[in-house]
């Protein structure tokens, strides 16, 4: 399964976890991959823990990311990091809300898309597909804000990589 990318996005109900995974899955789909996305709806609207799995590659079977096999774990709420950490592969990447300078975030509601920007630096999906997916999954009046948020997250990830070199 080495040619399959496994991403888990987690947070609390109302934070836009499912919207973020919709955008990621759509971007991967537009990039020509086989894609599967899985989560449980229902109780998620009541403020509880929510997580969503997205897998893409040449051919994906199960829609669920097995424990210990996530390449990237994106977490929108600090309290949900430990709850979800077991899903990460040994060399997996954790992208938490502490990745960002909260002050730079123009709108708290776009945290999900900002973290997708940071995620995008780790995935082989071209920017054009990300932007198309953002447009397809959000109302037109939200496009500009979320494009900026995405760019902010992507730049932050880039700066981090540069610092690490």
């Amino acid at each position: 399964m080495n040619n399959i990318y496994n991403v888990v996005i987690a947070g609390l109900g109302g934070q836009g976890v499912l919207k973020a995974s919709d955008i990621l899955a759509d971007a991967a789909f537009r990039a020509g991959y086989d894609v599967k996305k899985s989560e449980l709806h229902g109780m998620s609207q009541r403020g509880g823990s929510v997580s969503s799995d997205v897998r893409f590659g040449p051919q994906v079977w199960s829609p669920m990311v097995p424990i210990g096999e996530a390449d990237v774990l994106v977490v929108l709420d600090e309290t949900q990091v430990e709850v979800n950490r077991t899903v990460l592969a040994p060399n997996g990447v954790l992208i938490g809300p502490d990745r960002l300078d909260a002050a730079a975030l123009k709108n708290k509601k776009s945290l999900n898309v900002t973290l997708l920007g940071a995620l995008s630096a780790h995935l082989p999906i071209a920017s054009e597909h990300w932007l198309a997916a953002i447009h397809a999954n959000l109302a037109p009046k939200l496009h500009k804000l979320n494009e900026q948020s995405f760019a902010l997250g992507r730049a932050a990830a880039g700066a981090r990589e540069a610092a690490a070199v």
Partner: protein
Amino acid sequence: MSDSSQLLSGDEAIALAARHAGVRLGTGYPGTPSTEILETFDRLGGRAQWSPNEKVALEVGLGAAFGGARTLVTMKHVGLNVAADPLFTAAYTDLAAGLVVVSADDPGMASSQNEQDNRHYARAASLPMLEPMDSQEAYDFTLLAFDLSERWHLPVMLRITTRVCHSKTIVRPHDAPVPGEAIGPEPGFRRDIPARVMIPAYAKPAHRRLRQKLAEIAAWNDAEGPNRVFAGHPQVGLIATGIAAMHAREAAPQACLLTIGLTYPLPLETIRTFAAGCERLVVLEEGDPVLLDALRAAGIPAQGKPEQYRFGELTVARVRRILAGDETAEPAPPKGKPPELCQGCSHRGVFEVLRDMNCIVAGDIGCYTLGVLPPFQAMDTCVCMGASIGVGLGLRHVLPEEEARRVVSVIGDSTFVHSGLTGLAEMVYNPPATGHVVLILDNGTTAMTGQQEHPGTGRTLNHDATGRIHFEDLARAMGVNNVHVVDFQAADGTLEGLLKDLLTRSETSLIVARQPCVLAAPKIRFYEKAVADRSAACPSQVVDD
């Protein structure tokens, strides 16, 4: 990726297929994980309706199918219990057009009160059952279900599970029908009394006809059913259904695998041939050992799963454990934050009152079931839709008087319409010596499943104005002694004072605590404005409320 391919959930794929199959009417009752099917069908331009409950939805669907219209009926697994009465006898009838009944099961109970395995219903009702493993099969099997239903003139069940309903996978649809082109039969009445009137004289031959149909379908399933073989090493042969087939393929890519799409009646000869080519045969199925038992009854030696894997969903990791015969304890899943009543939710104040008054609360199914959790812990029973009233009455009948006077039945507005009316009739007909108090928490929507309309909101599935049932009028007409409406404000003590008074009386009482769901309120205002705007533009279409 072809131009027409789409990334769809299983629910969305079924809705799209229903449109492509020319379905003329979709009926159902909201229930996770099935709700999005009819909502998507409506959004795609189909005609969809929420019924008061699943039994009525299936009866309306059956009538439509008798009238020659392709019909889709959707519900969650426990909804099929409510619809079981029409289902079992509908199986005896001959339909004029395709009728597909979707049962969305919830192994693992992501949002349900039990994890019953509705594959048992196919065998019990003698109806064919299709089980897709992804959204593509959900699409394909919906089309196939209508074909089978019309070829054998009987309802066909499409059983899906939470993971198939809510996972998005790529669907390559067939060509959409040309607009205006008729698909399927044309509605019209054709009298056929022996096929539709199930008195014993007609039902006896109908039962034999049904068994004959099943024998033919089993032969068809062997000859050309939607079953697939993935070649592999013959040491281990796997037979899997539904989402388990996907986990199997990932967990054991080297094994040969037979996936079965039409799981009742089974393609036993196909399975026998497959089994003969494997040294060891393992059945991978979520829930009860339905398939395993059927194979063993047919004399096909097969292994199942250890008992611990009967509970909850299967995963790739669990399938690996099953294949390794691993019966050690599984790692506990991480404890996330549980759901809770929203901040600002009107139910919060009600449960504070019930808690502080030390009431014995017979509860029901909906968001307000969360009143059982801290800081309220103000619910003592919750079993099924509508049970709050009957259970509350039963408690009242037998408890010592001082305890009986603390019993209150709490039920939501949508749940009350679903199956609370007969409970109210029971209260009027067999009142306990201490009387009783029923509290309807009317938040103006079916909140738990995502804010769907119901007959108490006065709006249709797509939020147009329609007739509305007023609970207070209904209760008065049914003969309830005291009927009160509280426009609920937690702070002013109205509810508490009223409850104290009614609990001391030995009379039947109904309180409607009314305040819109905080999440739904802005949408409700929007719908009401849209209705007002439309009626202003075209006064003749105003629906009298």
